[in-house]
């Protein structure tokens, strides 16, 4: 029930932040209306980081505690992170075409490392399908999730470390934290969207975690069902055999 309420609150927050970003905040002097895409693009990118961070931490926790609930958390983070990374790339393309003149440029370190991040976690999800053994699957996924997480800081700091089309940080740079280069109205619209998307993210993480636990339970119950069916077949066979032995030969 609480999760359902969270879902409703998240939906209202997204509607409010979208109205703010599309209708209330003025267009940028230089970028025009294209700048409005930034609100959903940046929020998606940050939640992609958060999702993969959760996957890495939960994977580390699994390797330490061997608790399959942590594997369910890691799976939720990876699947939702893949979705948010795809959204961040899409939003960036929809902003890049009118502002840069191109949808994509492989020479840009931020774009390329983000594409690599997406590929790594799609690989993580595919890897999980290679085995039915929950413990082996969780251990392998945890290792891959930790290795893939190395790309998160590379993506984030790529705009500082290397030159490319993508601009530097607007207000997450520690030096700009208290004095962002963007106007306050834009920063507030971005924070509103980030807050709304975070609520959606929490809701989706809870639901995906619940689904992962159920899927694992179904796997276990199916195994138990097979064992039970085999026992039933064995007991039916042992009951039929004496009856056949009692039947007189013709």
């Amino acid at each position: 029930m609480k999760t359902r309420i969270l879902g409703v609150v998240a939906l209202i927050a997204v509607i409010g932040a979208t109205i703010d970003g599309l209708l209330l905040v003025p267009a940028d002097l230089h970028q025009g209306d294209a700048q409005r895409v930034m609100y959903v693009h940046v929020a998606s990118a940050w939640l992609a980081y958060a999702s993969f961070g959760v996957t890495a931490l939960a994977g580390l926790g699994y390797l330490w505690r061997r608790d399959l609930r942590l594997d369910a958390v890691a799976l939720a983070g990876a699947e939702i992170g893949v979705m948010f990374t795809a959204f961040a790339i899409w939003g960036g393309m929809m902003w890049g075409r009118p502002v840069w003149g191109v949808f994509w440029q492989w020479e840009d370190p931020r774009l390329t490392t983000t594409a690599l991040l997406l590929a790594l976690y799609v690989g993580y999800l595919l890897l999980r399908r290679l085995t039915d053994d929950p413990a082996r699957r969780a251990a392998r996924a945890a290792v891959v999730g930790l290795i893939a997480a190395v790309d998160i800081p590379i993506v984030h700091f790529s705009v500082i470390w290397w030159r490319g089309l993508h601009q530097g940080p607007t207000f997450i740079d520690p030096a700009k934290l208290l004095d962002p280069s963007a106007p306050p109205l834009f920063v507030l619209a971005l924070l509103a969207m980030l807050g709304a998307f975070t609520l959606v993210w929490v809701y989706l993480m809870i639901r995906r975690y619940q689904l992962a636990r159920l899927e694992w339970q179904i796997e276990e119950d199916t195994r138990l069902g097979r064992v039970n069916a085999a026992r039933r077949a064995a007991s039916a066979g042992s009951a039929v055999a004496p009856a056949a032995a009692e039947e007189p030969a013709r």
Partner: protein
Amino acid sequence: MSDAAFVFAGYGVILGGLGLYAVLLVRRLRAARDASLRIRGEADAPPIDVAR
């Protein structure tokens, strides 16, 4: 294409994708709950007493 078209394409795909994922997730969860109850019911069923 005007800037507004890119903005609507950006918001449309992202918000539409989020909504679609949320709906599909809830449906998957519901289906998994039903499957879990069904399988658990079958697994917990006592062995058939064929001697009777």
